[in-house]
């Protein structure tokens, strides 16, 4: 089959994958780690340890705080020093468990050997149980608990599992490294999820700019011989890795406004999540480590790395180990340049979903002065959701919530294509994000009122 892509909008930023040739290195352990209780979408986890407890690598230290939440495990061995609020990336206080590192003693139940285990357990419930117990969450950005996503609600059936290997954000190379260094594990992970979803089709989507990854995954698929798994080459285009866009590209189906992928029979998981599922189910290894890329523009090759890091290591430690913050850096981003978050607190800790530490120079990142909209329509052309950002911007300024909802501000996926493309440098997404929040508030309030009215009627 030829190359495919999503049907509307999108941009073609420069690749900038400078760290693609850097093999994954293991990041050394710091003296102290800080494990955040908010590492997933949904309710914060509840700590199960107390100061003074000694913990081993892989031991549970927090349990889910709700249905949509996840277990958290100790990434190191040592002594719990405290449980206290600490500033996250954005500078907001969040509960963290502080652990002083002593040695590196692992929970003996974890299989630490490098042997590939290809026999997949037959019991679906057992698989799901392991994925949940190991605290696996989506590592493609949203950090949605994986076991929840793999359990379609009653009446919904998945007919295609899409494994997202597009890595469409510029600069990022961690998914790429996983695909070329651990392709078999990724494929076994995909086969496990496929089994949980009752043997639906499975498509692994990879963008055309990663021929080595395509070859490696194809070879692994052929060698392992699981039925009904295929690799689909995607055209290079951002935001290909957005769930809605990927489903459109691979299945030519569109998820309705406010809907979920499962509504159109799709489940999307990232390649790194697939790797984490493999480790959880086949090796009993909880999600205590992940891969991150340290990279940036105008920085020397020796400062570029792909690290296997223990989750909870402070960002400042990562940057120190990587050779220090380059002088050219004007902005430090956790994640990719399109959707990552600017780091305001260098001592913030890494979390399950941390994918990159990105240094951007003044020239690359400085926002230009805003001028008048010239009605060029480039923002609308770029919007993968088919919205009209110039219009939403205007309606936001006029505080017209009704019109904002009618023009689907709530459908915005915050991909940033509009702001990226605007010649007048209007901060479109900054405003649309606000507008979206307000409209979502209205929609939620309306739903709550409708529910209350229905209940009042019943009584």
């Amino acid at each position, binding site marked *: 089959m030829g190359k495919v892509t999503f049907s509307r909008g999108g941009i073609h930023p420069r690749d900038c994958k400078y760290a693609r040739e850097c093999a994954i290195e293991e990041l050394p352990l710091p003296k102290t780690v800080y494990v955040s209780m908010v590492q997933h979408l949904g309710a914060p986890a509840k700590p199960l340890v107390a100061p003074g407890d000694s913990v081993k690598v892989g031991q549970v230290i927090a349990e889910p705080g709700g249905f949509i939440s996840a277990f958290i495990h100790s990434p190191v061995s040592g002594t719990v020093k405290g449980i206290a609020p600490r500033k996250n990336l954005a500078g907001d206080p969040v509960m963290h468990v502080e652990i002083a590192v002593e040695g590196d003693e692992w929970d003996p139940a974890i299989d630490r050997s490098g042997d590939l285990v290809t026999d997949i357990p037959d019991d679906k419930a057992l698989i799901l149980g392991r994925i949940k117990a190991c605290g696996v969450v989506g590592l493609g950005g949203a950090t949605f608990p994986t076991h929840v996503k793999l359990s379609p609600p009653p009446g919904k059936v998945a007919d295609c599992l899409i494994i997202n290997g597009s890595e469409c954000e510029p600069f990022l190379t961690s998914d790429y490294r996983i695909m070329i260094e651990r392709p078999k594990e990724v494929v076994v992970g995909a086969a496990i999820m496929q089994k949980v979803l009752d043997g639906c089709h499975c498509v692994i989507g990879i963008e055309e700019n990663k021929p080595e990854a395509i070859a490696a995954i194809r070879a692994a698929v052929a060698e392992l011989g699981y039925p009904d798994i295929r690799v689909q080459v995607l055209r290079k285009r951002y935001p290909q890795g957005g769930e809605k866009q990927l489903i459109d590209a691979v299945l030519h189906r569109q998820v309705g406004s406010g809907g979920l992928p499962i509504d159109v029979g799709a489940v999307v998981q990232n390649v790194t999540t697939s790797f984490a599922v493999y480790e959880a189910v086949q090796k009993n290894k909880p999600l205590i480590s992940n891969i991150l890329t340290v990279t940036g523009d105008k920085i020397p090759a020796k400062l570029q790395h792909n690290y296997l890091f223990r989750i909870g290591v402070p960002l400042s430690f990562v940057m120190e180990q990587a050779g220090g913050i380059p002088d050219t850096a*004007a902005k430090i981003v956790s994640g990719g340049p399109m959707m990552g978050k600017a780091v305001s607190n260098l001592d913030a800790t890494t979390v399950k979903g941390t994918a990159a530490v990105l240094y951007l120079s003044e020239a690359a990142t400085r926002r230009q002065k805003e001028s008048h909209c010239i009605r060029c329509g480039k923002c609308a052309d770029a919007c993968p959701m*088919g919205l009209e950002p110039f219009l939403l911007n205007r309606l936001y300024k006029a505080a017209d919530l009704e019109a904002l909802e009618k023009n689907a501000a709530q459908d915005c996926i915050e991909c940033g294509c509009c702001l*990226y493309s605007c010649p007048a440098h209007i901060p479109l997404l900054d405003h649309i994000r606000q507008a979206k929040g307000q409209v979502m508030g209205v929609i939620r309030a309306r739903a709550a009122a409708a529910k209350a009215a229905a209940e009042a009627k019943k009584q």
Partner: protein
Amino acid sequence: MDNKKYIVSPSPHIHADISTTSVMRDVIIALSPAAVVAILVYGWAELLVLLVSIVSCVLLEWAVTRWMMKRPSTVGDLSAVVTGLLLALNLPSAIPLWIVFIGAVVAICVAKLPFGGIGQNVFNPAITGRVFLLVSFPAQMTNWTPTPGFVPVPDAVSGATPLSLLKEALKGGSTIPQFLASNDFSMSSLLWDIGASAGELSAGALLIGFIYLLIRRVVKPWIPLSILGTMALISVVFHTVNPDIYTGPVFNIMTGGTLLGAFFMATDYVTSPMNVWGGVIFGVGIGLIDMMIRYFGAYPEGMSFAILLMNCTVPLLNRWFHQKKYGRT
């Protein structure tokens, strides 16, 4: 860690290498082949018209924004240069320079700045300037005496563009074959169109510029295609019915301000619809109005009037046509 302050702002953290200035620069580059051809053929006079027009537009924009509107000047975005260039390419080279200046005043101080400046005007400034001059100074605006150029040109027709000669002849009751015979020129010399206004001169130069804009993704082809398609269709029908009094499609597309208007003025971002289908309707409307003026109106051609009229419909077209949203029907 050090105490250096890092920028903290929301995503996205990078931006395309594009600005209003870079877009305008591309339009200027695209118009330069046509300007060069015009200068070669019409010499110093044309050069002066271009200079006076551009310099007046830029100075007026600078002065009015700084001294009257009391806000930072916007001349840096080069949009005033584009307006000056387009206005000049719409004028005969023999026109007195003070009239050029009046055109610039109308374009910048009437059509553009009172609406709020770039992005907020309803009418295309250069066209507004041209139409104002056409109505106010009809004699000077239709004096197509070729000024001495830097390169020799064949077949110079003096006094009026063949288009207006033909119009006069048709109004006087003669047919196209009679007109050609009595004036002793062929259809092909009409197409070469010596004696036409500068910007209309070379279809080739305009086409090269337009292709450059397409490649640079500055404009999309829908508006020009629907203008030219509509004009071709109407011409084919009328010309087939009565070739004696209705000119054919090639003639109508290659003469007058058709190409300059379709490629560069109807595609002005600010004064054209943003949506593809809105753009198609806009283009069809322009083609229709221009052909009606050519066949039945008082003027030999009506590209400027057509664009100006359709400019009025843009706010409505923008309200009616929205692009298809993902996942919604």
